[in-house]
């Protein structure tokens, strides 16, 4: 089970997730990110604060999402990683590939200051 809630945070958006990001739910996030990269908002901040489980299918979506974001000149950032989730990102060598923040507010504030996509 995964709930996806979009919260506007102009000029960007927060994608708030709750539940598990596994083989069944990862495609839902993939579709959502795809849709957002075709629309205006940037940065796209994915809030994992209520996600207790991320499997390789979820990592795959984040990696593909980061590549698409770069091509579309969008910023994709992550926040709220719980310890077990952070460990999975670390073991997969994925943490260095992302901007990671403590909270969605912190992410949007930092990215607003940075301005244009890197």
């Amino acid at each position, binding site marked *: 089970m995964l709930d996806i809630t979009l919260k506007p945070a102009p000029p960007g958006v927060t994608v708030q997730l709750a539940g598990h990001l596994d083989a069944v739910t990862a495609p839902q996030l993939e579709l959502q990110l795809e849709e957002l990269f075709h629309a205006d908002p940037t940065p796209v901040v994915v809030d994992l604060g209520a996600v207790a489980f991320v499997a390789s*299918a979820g990592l795959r979506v984040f990696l593909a999402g980061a590549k698409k974001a770069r091509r579309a000149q969008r910023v994709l950032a992550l926040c709220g990683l719980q310890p077990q989730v952070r460990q999975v990102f670390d073991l997969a060598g994925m943490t260095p590939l992302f901007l990671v923040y403590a909270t969605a507010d912190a992410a949007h504030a930092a990215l607003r200051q940075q301005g244009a996509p890197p």
Partner: protein
Amino acid sequence: MKPDSDCKAQSGDWQREVPNRLADVSAAAAAAGDFLRRHGVAEAAAHAVHLALEELLTNTVRYGRPAGPSRVALVIRTDAVVARLEDDGGAFNPLTVPAPDLPPDLDARTPGGLGIHLVRRLVSGLDYERRAGRNLVTVTVAR
């Protein structure tokens, strides 16, 4: 998905026959983690078992083409949790999967191939046997 109360009553043991569909195997993997937490297994070990079952069972569904359901059994020991997985799909030894290259550069990374890598890094023991046309995988996670 059967509720846990349908499982063998012996405390500390859990077993399932899981239909080979992604929805069923992901739910079973999560249920296994919840079962372990309810029986006093610490979060790190319960999470490791959840993840190992998710990755190994979804691999079987995606690539193994099994005819029958996968079987999963958990035993909680004082020092470790042992999970036994069995399926009649094509021979697949997770120990022979090469470790992925993980460059810290987005352009150099290709999505996929992380599942077995995560399992090997998170568990303390992984054994494989092919017997009578079945894959038998034993996962050990220290408590």
